[in-house]
């Protein structure tokens, strides 16, 4: 019995900035429901006494010295830009606020 609802998928699509079509939302709700049912069993063995591992090979204190390296030229930086004004990337009007 899956937990994922259509509303949730819509909400997630919003968070992920993907304009899913209604059909896609339907399909995805079904598919994700099945997948989640399947993967949810991880919580069975993930008891409190088991620590989480986020890095497969433990390392720590990996740093670099505060020394200037090479930068891209503005031309290189803008080379892939869909739209720019010669020095800056250009985007259409912004709706939301800075975080």
């Amino acid at each position, binding site marked *: 019995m899956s937990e994922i609802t259509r509303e949730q998928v819509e909400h997630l699509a*919003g*968070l992920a*900035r993907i304009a899913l079509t209604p059909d896609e939302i339907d399909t995805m709700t079904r598919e994700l429901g099945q997948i989640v049912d399947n993967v949810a069993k991880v919580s069975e063995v993930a008891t409190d006494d088991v620590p989480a591992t*986020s*890095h497969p090979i433990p*390392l*720590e*204190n*990996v*740093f*670099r*010295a*505060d*020394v*200037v*390296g*090479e*930068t*891209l*030229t*503005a031309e290189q*930086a*803008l080379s*892939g830009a869909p739209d720019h*004004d010669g*020095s*800056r*990337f*250009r*985007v*259409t*009007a*912004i*709706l*939301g*606020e*800075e*975080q």
Partner: protein
Amino acid sequence: MAKADLMDYDEALERYEVVLGFEVHVELATKTKMFSDAPNFFGGAPNTNVTPVDLGLPGSLPVVNEQAVTYSISLGLALGCSIAESSRFARKNYFYPDNPKNYQVSQFDEPIAFEGEVEVELPDGTVFHVPIERAHMEEDAGKLTHVGGSTGRIQGAEYSLVDYNRAGIPLVEIVTKPIIGAGALGPELGAAYVSTIRDIVRALGVSEARMERGNLRCDANVSLRPHGQVELGTRTETKNVNSFRSVERAVRHEIQRQAAILAAGGTITQETRHWHEDTGRTSAGRPKSDADDYRYFPEPDLLPVVPSRELVEELRLALPEAPVAMRRRLKADWGFADLEFQDVVNSGLLQELVDTVAAGASPQAARKWWTGEIARLANAAGVEPSSLVSPLHVSELIALVESGELTDRLARQVLEGVVAGEGSPSEVVESRGLRVVSDDGALIAAIDEALASQPDVLAKIRDGKVQAAGAVIGAVMKAMKGQADAARVRELVLERAQA
């Protein structure tokens, strides 16, 4: 935009208890960015200060700047914090065009520093202990310019331009715990707190901390609750607070605004508000779409930062004096009156005085010049006093006055020369020929000439009306282009008049 109703300030405080919180972002003055080796300086042509990492290009990876970590630890220690045994970076996920990866590498549940306290002194001498929740490392975003529309602000803009030069600059975010009990002093406390943070980071040398340049940014959180209520009220977060004075004004305004709403039976919306310096008001920000769920998780591309206890101790020993303690000591050492000292502090010139005194000047002379003529020139030019002249040069100038080589008036001319970039005070004296003429012979020549051309004055002086000498003194000073000690001229005038 409708004008908000504001309750009278004193009434607001009578009816409600104010709880404050501040989030201060400090830009670290490292040579390179937080996670890339692009140079850390602001300015330069757009997008010339970026690597693939700063643009968030596919395949790019972050690498931590060691200096930023040591600066952050020092800052944490200076805030009285404990330093984490193990600290991790985390991704804060949200979409925004100035955010090159659409996640910010920050810290979440394992910040580098936590649980501290900062002593803050208000202008009237009251001392507060502001509790610090945490200080953590993160990277700055790029800069957006909004084009089209009438205000240059985001509303009504047709399009926006993005410059990623600033993306990746190292930041430390300092978060206070809820500040309770400030009462009517809340707004001043806010300003004083931010000013104290600025003094701390400048004394540490980890940041230039100029609010007007964005090296130091403050978000002010305000909530109200009825007296005696335990539960905290709903808080608002106010951004775009760009000076100490703005902090004070914004906090005061929010208190008044929220009180009016609550008193009328309304509720406060938890939201981000924008401070408007020109109107002295806050306005509601635009929808903050991802704020509810940043989906923090440990940054898989970076490894834990595990500062050794030896390093932490080493940095702790290297800490400079805390600002409040330092101020107490200086005021006592210098023997300033309360108002004199406060004046210096409020003008942000404390460090300048310290440096000038260290270079040999007397505290009072240093104060006189910095808060007097230098501040005046700075105001006129619209810049910071410290950008006009160095403490070393001020000290040199003071020494020249004290040795009698310069009068006050001449010294002001010399100062202008120094400010104009003509060199050190001694160099300006030479090149402009501004030295006080100490050779009596030259003075006497000028005096005799002046007396000869003003026989009536000469007669008056001989008659015992010494005030008349003023006209002759004036003429002599003019002839000497001010390069004479007026007191000595007067002496000589009276001597020569009798001769």
